[in-house]
């Protein structure tokens, strides 16, 4: 399987994206997915999106994207976290 590029975006690129990136990194280790995870502010997304396989965001992107987008808020509230982990794993195994 090719290395997967995942971009994690939040409002400031420091708080929620840090937590989400950590949880997705653990998921990828567990599932044996070779992934490159980068974190950014949503306003800087254009600079990071090239070649990305998946965007996970805790905020609103504000525009359409060709790359699949998954809402990462369940990682913060804990509500629906298992489901979103499954959804991410499935997307990355496509």
């Amino acid at each position, binding site marked *: 399987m090719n290395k997967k590029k995942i971009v994690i975006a939040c409002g400031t690129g*420091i708080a929620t994206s840090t937590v989400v990136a950590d949880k997705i990194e653990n998921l990828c280790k567990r599932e044996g997915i070779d992934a490159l995870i980068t974190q950014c502010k949503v306003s800087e997304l254009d600079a990071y999106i090239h070649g990305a396989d998946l965007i996970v965001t805790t905020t*609103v992107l504000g525009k359409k994207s060709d790359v699949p987008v998954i809402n990462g808020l369940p990682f913060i509230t804990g509500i629906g976290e298992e489901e979103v982990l499954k959804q991410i794993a499935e997307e990355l195994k496509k």
Partner: protein
Amino acid sequence: MQQTTLINADIIMLNLENVDKTKVLTVMANRLIDKGYVKESYLPAVLNREEEYPTGLPTNGVGVAIPHADTKHVLKPGIAVATLKDPVKFNVMGNPEQEIDVKLLFMLAIKEPEVQVNILKKLVSIFQAKELLIKLISINCEKELVDILNSLLNKDDED
């Protein structure tokens, strides 16, 4: 590993009354400024950020908000905590059309997220514990809240 204590009694505000969203954000940011955690530019930054990318979390039990601003406004890391006597409406992170009632706020002054990732993770695990959130908003003593939060945030990981 020795972790810096991020929650200190000088930046805890309990049972704030007669506040709206802007007021509570202003009171908390001004406290962080007065106590030397952040620059004066943190206040407008945190207000703008909340408008653009709201930080209300639809958590179970007690609504939480985690206002914060860019690292460049931060002088030393800290987390200001406020509990509210009456809930204040915040817009939900990632879904700004939705509003939630917030009674517990953590205003984050984060300087090096990669260093503070473990603390951020533990903070997030607090948001996910309904009974704990209910307990936290009932506390009326700054020191008690500081002790509970720091013991939760600084406890060693199993891994």
